[in-house]
């Protein structure tokens, strides 16, 4: 690991001040991903501003929304009563990620900012356009079984590894930011970028901007929501495909509204807008679910090893929706 300057911030404004205009600084929270990457010589910050223990509160508001402090641990969010009652999809997504020990350290902000698990990104002897623009991508013709099927580019086929973000994107969560230019908010679904020609630029965050909170707006029907994750072992593995879903049913069994998001398939948590469009107003049955899944995966493109994800994603969307409307359990 390369030596770096370290400073602990007393509050978000202080953190932004400490970060200042340093071009190669990093905010450090739980460190469960950043420190790993520093040990692997992938992240090489000159300075680290410690924001651990800032903004740890979880505020369940009377209007049904919940504001998660960026420093709240994954465990704190997943075990919070209001989160479990109002947004089971969020609690389930978090509990499907990492291990208990990691969740005890990892934070909301850090989870959003975690980086891809692409093998070649992690190996500084491999070519990677994320690490070095224009170097090439060893994944496209290499081991790409865990890689993207949606929204990838000829420069990068990496996926975003978060489970939590998939649920948050389904829930229309907004991210609160504080930076040198002041504060602003952004829809989480707009925060992560597709790789395009600049896969190294992973988010819309500007230099020195810090995530201070994530606001999950009220969504009454999210109390009927679910997260299903498919992976290579029963725990402590990243998603090959995951689905966050919520369904609002009319008395007559038709779908008033629905939320669908996918993980493990793209460079960002993938909001299933096409699927939702099919679902809205349709009858809640298998045929509808399959049409919705087909619509969402219509533009999916498989690589040499990950073609199975296309069909798998469809199956899991259908299964997740079924479990919501007829209570079937995986």
């Amino acid at each position, binding site marked *: *690991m*390369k*030596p770096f300057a370290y400073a602990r911030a007393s509050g978000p404004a202080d953190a932004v001040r400490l970060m200042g205009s340093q071009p190669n600084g990093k905010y450090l929270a739980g460190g469960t991903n950043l420190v790993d990457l520093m040990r*692997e*010589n992938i992240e090489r910050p000159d300075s680290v501003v410690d924001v651990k223990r800032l903004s740890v509160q979880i505020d369940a508001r009377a209007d049904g929304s919940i504001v998660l402090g960026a420093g709240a641990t994954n465990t704190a969010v997943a075990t919070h009563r209001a989160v479990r009652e109002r947004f089971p999809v969020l609690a389930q997504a978090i509990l499907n990620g990492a291990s208990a020990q990691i969740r005890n350290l990892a934070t909301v902000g850090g989870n959003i900012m975690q980086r891809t*698990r692409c*093998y*070649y990104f*992690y*190996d500084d*002897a*491999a070519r990677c356009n994320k690490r070095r623009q224009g170097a090439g991508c*060893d994944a496209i*013709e*290499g*081991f790409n*079984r865990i890689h993207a099927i949606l929204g990838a580019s000829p420069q990068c086929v990496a996926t975003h590894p978060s489970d939590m973000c998939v649920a948050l994107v389904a829930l229309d969560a907004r991210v609160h930011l504080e930076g040198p230019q002041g504060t602003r908010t952004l829809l989480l679904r707009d925060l992560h970028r597709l790789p395009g020609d600049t896969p190294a630029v992973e988010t819309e965050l500007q230099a020195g901007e810090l995530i201070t909170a994530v606001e999950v707006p009220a969504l009454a029907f999210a109390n009927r929501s679910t997260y299903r994750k*498919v*992976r*290579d*072992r*029963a*725990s*402590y*593995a990243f998603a*090959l*495909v995951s689905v966050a879903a919520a369904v609002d049913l009319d008395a007559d069994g038709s779908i008033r509204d629905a939320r669908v998001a996918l993980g493990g398939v793209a460079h960002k948590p993938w909001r299933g807008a096409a699927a939702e469009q099919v679902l809205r107003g349709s009858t809640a049955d298998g045929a509808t679910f399959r049409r919705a899944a087909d619509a969402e995966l219509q533009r999916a493109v498989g690589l040499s090893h990950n073609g*199975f994800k296309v*069909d*798998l994603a469809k*199956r*899991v969307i*259908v*299964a997740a929706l079924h479990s919501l409307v007829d209570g*079937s*359990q*995986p």
Partner: protein
Amino acid sequence: MSFMQKAMETVVKLLPDKAPDLLIGATGAIGKPLARVDGPQKVSGTARFTAEVPLDRLAFAALVCSTIAKGRIAHLDTGAAERAPGVVAVMTFQNAPTMTPPPQQFTDRRSASTSNLSVMQDARVYWNGQPVAVVIAESQEQADEAALLVIVVYREEKAALAFETLLTDAKAPDNILGEPAEERRGDAETALRKSPVRIDEIYRTPRYNHGAIELHASTAWWEGDDKLVLHDASQAISDTRYTLAKTFDLQEEDVRVLAPFVGGAFGNKGVWSHTLLCIAAARLVDRPVRLVLSREQVFRITGGRTLSRQRVALGANADGTLGALIHTGETGVVSHNAFPEQFSFPARHLYAAKTWLIQQKVVGLDMVANTAMRAPGESIGTFALESALDELAVALRIDPVDLRARLEPPKDPTKDTPFSMRNLVEAYRRGAERFGWAERNPAPGAQRDGEWRIGQGVATATYPYYRMPGGAARIRIAADGRATVQAAAHEMGMGTATVQAQHAADRLGLPIELVTFEYGDSDLPRSPVAGGSSQTASIIAAVIAANDVLVKQLLELCGKDSPLAGATLDDVHARDGGLFMRADRERGETYTSILRRAGKDHVEAVADAPAPLEMMKYSMHSFGAQFCEVRVSDVSGEIRVSRWLGSFDTGRILNSRTAASQFRGGIVMGIGMALSEEALFDERTGRIVNPSLAEYHLPVHLDIPPIDVMWLDLPDPHAPLGLHGIGEIGITGVAAAIANAVYNATGRRIRQLPITLDKVLAEDFLG
């Protein structure tokens, strides 16, 4: 096999059997579920492992590893690293001390080295990940940082990396761990063609890497120019001493290797390049040096189980009897060791057939040396063979348990010798009863629980009995009645110290509290490698030999005033803290009494174990039956193992607690091998792309169901104490049992490990 070996075997077959061990059926400390004697040290953190040995002036080393698979170092720039804070020295081929290429363990039985390549003596690169520089610094962090500053430029050469495309170049090796590369009887191919029922399939297994929880570590220092001390995470300390003496041109007695605790080894903790580099670095900087591998480096510079492509063809009659048994195939190997991964061994001993063709070939690759990994050969060989047996059972509509019973051979088919012990059918019978096999629905896809399809599978487990030659032991009994037993030996977590104390207590007739087993130090009497599931039997044979010498000495000390006056070795046995006449229970004397009367404060004896002739005279194997149940998701293809029973025939069990743990550990490792583990080797670069425990998927707790194990506990009359080693058999048959259960659940036969969900979904079996 050499002429001498053949002649020797012929002679040995004519020798009378040794009388079975007196203790073979005795009950004392042996067999009890004694807790590990080193348990309190381990759970309280006071057990000191190699990377924890405190030393003055200790320097820390970090490795720089190659990023090409084959070629030469064209240019090295160590300047920036040398100038980095805390750096003591940077070692490369340009300044490394001279080392002789080590002897290689699979051709020189006394060696522990996994390769015979010279280490850091020239500019050559033999595999992607080979150490090319060592940075030595005042702290580990400084060494790690400076290692990033070493600049290496390579001149790359074309490397042999793509196994499947090189199969046409496969060659038969001279031998497979001393056995012929090919066994044939009759014309198996023709017999296959003429058989009414045929199975003829290709099975593939990938590379597997070791993941012992303790990272490889060495701590070395020199005492003057010609004395060396090494703490090493090792499962072969006496062999390591021999290897180091050869490599550094030393007398063996001037090398001391210590390893009191090892955190898992599984075949991979021999001498790798880092061990030699740590010692060389200590010489270069004239200080003690510690070198601990990172997890990534465990993947890059220590090898694991190599990949294989195996053909199994079975030609059967309607009653299940085999007209032809063919098991052939190829594995990937390196030129700098001789480890073909003996997948063809199970087929040589398991089943009766009229004709057979058993053959292994190897494909040379430019990669880190492959090596032993828990039941090398038998683990992947049983995957292919036992999957094929299941396919045959399906084709014949014969229950797979019943099919195995119909194939029971009267003696070892290829070796043509009697089995010393074989109760495979009984292990199946009792296992089937406990598992409830009779209730299984043989129709594929017939059992379901919601979206989960359920299936059961079974497979044979088998592993040879080995007792390694060259072991010795020392026993010392003090006048206070306490005994110390010593052997270099290895405790990698499996309970060596515990079971050896149990055996010694009964052997010496002492309560276990009065017996101490000392080990983990090459200055103690030599022990063979803790490999091939042989250590327990190897050491016990040496302790028995040492005890015979000790008893003779004690009888000589007795003199005419002792109740034992005039007694000889065969007249007495040990019990109640002394020696007593076998024929007259009243006549005897305690050790304390004998030693006090003789005016001695102790008696001590050391002896070598006799040569393992029993292995030549008999076909000696352990057996078992692995039963399991799996659940396969209709939606995702995910596989969950929901039930396991292993039923084993492994001779006498010394400690039911540590034995159960060994069996279970093997089964857990087998579940990983079957379902999730695979070292991804990028054939463009020769680089493993998932060298971490995050992406190399060992099973986690949630992947493992309750594992039931049972054993027959029938002693092998031809083995010391009637025991067989049990460290490896647990993994054998596991992958096949799972593949067979997946077939029963889904109707999908998956012949390539690991059985991941994309393979289950591949043919869209669920429609």
